[in-house]
């Protein structure tokens, strides 16, 4: 058993009645609006991608700077170790 509903039409719809729905300028208006929206969306997407890349680069750059600083500045543990060596040497 099919799931379709079959209806019988005695007459074909007249051309005049169909013409009432014909409106190419309206189609063009919607099309232009969609094209503009797509363009804005594309620009926004590119902007977000570029922004993301810049943020990632900034994070990397700051992390690298921080890491370099950490390497050049002697740490407290190094001082403690040095003190222990000196004390041992004098006692020895």
């Amino acid at each position, binding site marked *: 058993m*099919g799931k*379709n509903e*079959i*209806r*019988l039409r*005695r007459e074909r719809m007249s051309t005049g009645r*169909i013409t009432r729905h014909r409106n190419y300028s309206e*189609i063009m208006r919607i*099309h232009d609006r*969609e094209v503009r929206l797509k363009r804005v969306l594309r620009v926004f997407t590119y902007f977000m991608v570029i922004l993301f890349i810049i943020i990632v680069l900034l994070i990397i750059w700051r992390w690298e700077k921080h890491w370099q600083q950490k390497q050049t500045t002697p740490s407290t543990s190094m001082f403690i170790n040095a003190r222990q060596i000196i004390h041992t040497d004098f006692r020895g």
Partner: protein
Amino acid sequence: MLPEEEVRREYQILEHARKDPQAFGELYEKYFERIFNFIFRQTDDEELTADLTSQTFLNALNHLSTFEYRGVPVSAWLYRIAANEVKKFYRRKKRNRIFSLEEVKIKELVEQGTEHWSEEQLHRMLSYLKELPTDMLEVLELRFFEDKDFKEIAYILGITESGAKMRTYRALDRLRKKFNLKIKYNG
């Protein structure tokens, strides 16, 4: 079937419309009524048909750049978009498909000549059509109500040409057996 020259001219219009969408207006004017009737036959709702027809042409405009020549008239491409719009609508609404068929066309479907086509026969035919699966009805509609050839039907429904022929043949064969009638196939 359109002459080769006319098909080529329509493709030139499409090419031109890629740069200037206003040019597509010529094809809109030419095919609006046919696409409207095609959709109306599957919805039986004038306002809904107007919306779906607009959406069909809008989709066509939006996808002009992706359209490729596949040896079928531009109208087949529009029918394909329209058929997809109708399918999308029914899928979204989860409603049963409606086929609103013209009496004259049903009579044309059967080679009755001058014989009288009684109301009872007509209603028997409608209840038979109701039992047919949707894919068979789609093929019958395109073949006998839109006068499309099998190559176009295959393109519109996204099936093979032999598949379109097979579906039509099966549907008509069942009709022949049930009604003991002579029906045009033109395969």
